[in-house]
């Protein structure tokens, strides 16, 4: 799947992730699935990591519910989540895979491992025969239309 995110949203989550480092940063993404198969992120939500650690994140279900309501009020669709890896690469960890249970979701991971060189990737995670399979999505960071 091809997925797009606006450069301004990328910049926003990067700046936030830097500001809370060494803790992991997290949030939700919303947008539309276009008929041409492109998933378009139109709104990025920055939420609180209630774990407040550099090794784990959890989004408070109350924040999640309020965000879902806002997404629907804006005529958008929940598309998945994003989180940062302050000290590790932009790929799903074993814990990320274990807790990725929505096969319709895109999971974005922003690595801050290399100073000044943030790396954002998107992944699809699916359970097949009890095993989690991960597929990298084609993420395009684009200038605002």
């Amino acid at each position, binding site marked *: 799947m091809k997925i797009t995110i606006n450069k301004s949203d990328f910049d926003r989550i990067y700046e936030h992730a830097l500001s809370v480092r060494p803790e*992991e940063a*997290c949030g*939700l993404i919303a947008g539309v699935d276009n008929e041409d198969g492109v998933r378009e992120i139109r709104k990025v939500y920055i939420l609180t990591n209630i*774990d407040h650690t*550099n*090794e*784990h*994140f*959890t*989004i408070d*279900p109350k924040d*999640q*519910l309020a965000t*879902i*309501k806002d997404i*629907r009020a804006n005529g958008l669709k929940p598309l998945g*989540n994003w*989180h940062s*890896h*302050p*000290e*590790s690469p932009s790929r*799903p*960890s*074993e*814990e*990320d895979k274990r*807790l*990725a*249970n*929505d*096969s319709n*979701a895109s*999971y974005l991971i922003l690595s801050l491992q290399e100073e000044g060189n943030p790396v954002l990737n998107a992944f699809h995670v699916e*359970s097949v025969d009890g095993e989690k399979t991960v597929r990298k999505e084609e993420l395009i960071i684009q200038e605002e239309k």
Partner: protein
Amino acid sequence: MKITVAGEKKEVADGITVAALIEQENVETPQYVTVSINEEFVESGAFADTVIKEGDEIEFLYFMGGGAF
């Protein structure tokens, strides 16, 4: 009766429970799902006994978390 599930209007049987709705909607990995009715969370142990009413708004929320390792 009419209810709203994840933002979509749906017709379901009167007296349907949260557990039955989860099954009917083919919710993936329901053990990782939190359910809200009209913005109130339902304890997972109460899914089988919680009856949904006409006009209720239901959301299925996947646990959103992960780790670096």
